[in-house]
């Protein structure tokens, strides 16, 4: 991040629009803003912070009351009930792109002394493209977090007089937090924490869901398919055997037909078999017809209820109640017109009027009447169908009984023929018939078995279909489990990767900062020979070791603590490689000339952009001379005591 310019309007003592352009020149990277006490240095510093981060960012309060931001001069010039605005715009470069943030707040003047905010502060962030087109950045906080997070800001934009905190003995936690934030260790820490949390939750979920159900279902399905295959093979085998038995019977029949003593009986048998087949077919048809009637004529069961309902309706019709002899609409019309059917007028409350009222109560609505008539007609159709259907059913059942009797008789005849053939004195006929009987018994047995097998196949088909549905469900569940398991594995792997990298990276960063802090401290402090070493231990205590090997931090002067803190901050900035400006408000207030001269000599080398808010007393003599070759922009804040307003004047 490199600041380009800031523009203020109606902001504290900056009543009129003021703009200040920062130096971005690599050689002349310093911008100095001079101002006497109260001229507006701190207001300008506040304007920069407020514009970039707002009033409160994640519990860091930048300004308590936005009313304080509005120019008093602007308020004074506004009539009571009028509105006043304060606005700040900051333009900066980051990663080769130009950004512009404008933040404003509006207040209403309730009385001469009271102003109240009319709403929240409004901030807009634009990304300016190379063609000059500006696109609004929707997530300002997210974007600023990726450029210079609010909680890291304090290490780059700070009040020089308050930065000695890092050098205080109790500052280990602050030092650690600063390193965590600036060196992105906090990022790693949070990522590790959240990934571990995610992995734990996935594990928990997986434990609840995992069942092994799919494996069981696949086994069951495989088994059912195997049984079905075996059964189907058995059916094929039996069918072949039946076919073969039939051929044998045919063969025997041919032999019997050729034997004169068996010919007559064979002819009888053939006739009986033909008849048996025909009667069998007829009986089968009758059975089927009965079955169909049974399934489609359930209304027969409600016959008595239908007849009773029809009786009730017919009785009402016979009595003239349905259709009603009194038309409701007709009576209603007479009542509406207050006219008798003969044309005479009717008076309310008269006998005629009362009679019409009574008729009205007796009448029923035409809609209900129509419904009743329709129902009667429908019931009549159903009742009329009952008798023929019942008759039909009885006839068919009788026919079936008759056919069964005929078949029984034919079977008796058939047995008789077989007995005669079997008992034939001619051995060949007897033997052939016995063989024939055996084959026929086999066919019967096998046909029965086929029936059983087909039943089994049918039930197996249903079972396999159910298992397929269950398996598909289980497959979906297992796919989810598999994905969950993979998610757990990946989250854990990523958390472990960060865990492994974190400590080594943290130690490496700490050691680099230690070395860099030492290097910078030595160049900035004036008693460099007195201080031998700077240590930043694993406990994050920033320690100064004097020439005698003693810890010198408790004895450091306020100025030396400031130098140590500044060294630490700039060391962090250098080690992190973060491209951010160093903006310091009154940086040299506590420093005597020697350290001030050193800082002004070396500090510009430690950052890409240095912005200093100084009083004339802070920066003069050798210090100013040291800085001069690096100053690219210089301004003076001119405070006008007559208007209490400040203007920004460029120092040529």
């Amino acid at each position, binding site marked *: 991040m490199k600041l380009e310019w800031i523009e203020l309007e109606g902001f504290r003592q900056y009543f009129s629009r003021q703009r200040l352009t920062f130096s971005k020149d690599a050689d002349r990277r310093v911008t100095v803003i001079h101002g006497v006490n109260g001229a507006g240095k701190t207001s300008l510093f506040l304007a920069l912070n407020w514009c970039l981060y707002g009033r409160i*960012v*994640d*519990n860091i309060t930048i300004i308590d009351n936005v009313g304080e931001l509005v120019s008093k001069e602007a308020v004074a010039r506004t009539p009571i009930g009028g509105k006043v605005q304060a606005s700040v715009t900051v333009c900066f470069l980051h990663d080769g792109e130009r950004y512009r943030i404008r933040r404003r707040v509006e207040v209403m003047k309730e009385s001469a002394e009271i102003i109240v905010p009319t709403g929240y502060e409004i901030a807009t962030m634009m990304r300016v493209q190379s063609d000059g087109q500006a696109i609004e950045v929707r*997530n300002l*906080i*997210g974007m*600023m*977090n*990726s450029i210079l*997070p*609010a*909680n*890291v800001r304090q290490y780059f934009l700070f009040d020089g007089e308050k930065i000695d905190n890092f050098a205080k003995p109790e500052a280990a936690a602050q030092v650690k937090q600063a390193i965590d*934030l600036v*060196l*992105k260790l*906090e*990022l*790693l820490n*949070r*990522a590790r924490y*959240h*990934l571990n949390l*995610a992995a734990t939750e996935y594990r928990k979920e997986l434990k609840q869901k995992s069942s092994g159900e799919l494996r069981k279902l696949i086994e069951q399905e495989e088994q059912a398919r195997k049984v079905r295959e075996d059964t189907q093979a058995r059916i094929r085998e039996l069918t072949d055997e039946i076919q073969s038995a039939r051929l044998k019977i045919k063969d025997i029949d041919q032999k019997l037909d050729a034997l004169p003593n068996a010919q007559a009986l064979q002819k009888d048998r053939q006739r009986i078999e033909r008849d048996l087949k025909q009667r069998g077919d007829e009986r089968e048809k009758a059975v089927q017809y009965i079955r169909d009637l049974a399934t489609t004529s359930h209304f027969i069961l409600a016959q008595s209820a239908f007849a009773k309902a029809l009786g009730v309706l017919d009785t009402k019709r016979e009595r003239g109640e349905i259709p009603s002899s009194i038309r409701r609409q007709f009576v209603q019309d007479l009542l509406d017109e207050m006219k008798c059917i003969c044309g005479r007028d009717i008076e309310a409350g008269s006998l005629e009027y009362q009679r019409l009222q009574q008729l009205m109560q007796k009448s029923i609505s035409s809609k209900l009447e129509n419904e009743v008539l329709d129902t009667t007609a429908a019931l009549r159709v159903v009742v009329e169908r009952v008798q023929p259907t019942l008759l039909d059913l009885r006839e068919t059942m009788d026919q079936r009984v008759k056919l069964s009797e005929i078949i029984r008789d034919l079977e008796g005849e058939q047995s008789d023929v077989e007995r005669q053939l079997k008992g034939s004195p001619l051995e060949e006929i007897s033997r052939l018939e016995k063989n024939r009987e055996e084959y026929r018994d086999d066919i019967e047995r096998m046909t029965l078995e086929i029936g059983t097998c087909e039943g089994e196949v049918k039930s197996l088909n249903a079972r396999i279909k159910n298992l397929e549905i269950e398996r598909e469900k289980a497959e979906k569940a297992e796919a989810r489990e*598999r*994905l969950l398991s*993979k*998610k757990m*594995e*990946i*989250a854990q*792997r*990523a958390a472990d*990767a*960060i865990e492994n*990298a974190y400590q*080594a*990276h943290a130690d490496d960063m700490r050691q680099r900062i230690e070395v860099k802090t030492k290097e910078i401290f030595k160049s900035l402090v004036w008693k460099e020979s007195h201080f031998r070493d700077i240590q930043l231990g694993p406990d994050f205590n920033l320690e100064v070791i004097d020439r005698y090997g003693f810890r010198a931090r408790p004895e450091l002067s306020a100025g030396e603590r400031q130098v140590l803190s500044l060294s630490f901050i700039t060391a962090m900035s250098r080690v*992190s*490689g*973060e*491209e951010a400006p160093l903006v310091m408000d009154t940086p040299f207030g506590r420093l005597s000339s020697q350290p001030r001269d050193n800082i002004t000599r070396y500090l510009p080398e430690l950052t890409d952009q240095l912005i200093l808010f100084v009083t004339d007393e802070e920066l003069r003599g050798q210090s100013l001379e040291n800085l001069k070759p690096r100053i690219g922009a210089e301004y003076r804040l001119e405070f006008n005591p007559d208007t209490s307003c400040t203007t920004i004047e460029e120092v040529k």
Partner: protein
Amino acid sequence: MPQERIERLFSEWDETTQKVVRETLSLEREYISYEKPRLKDQLDMLIERAAKYEVALQDREREETSPV
């Protein structure tokens, strides 16, 4: 620059881990100024994306190596 340095810390890890770490860090960076950011859903989304990719990769490898 610091971003690249952090990413280099994971260069030894497999591609998916690197991607998940990179995306998680990017997400964390966006919410770094929040004390307790709610990242559960976004984190789940990026992990699921990576998991689906790996599962699909495994399935493809299995198909390629399984006998026809």
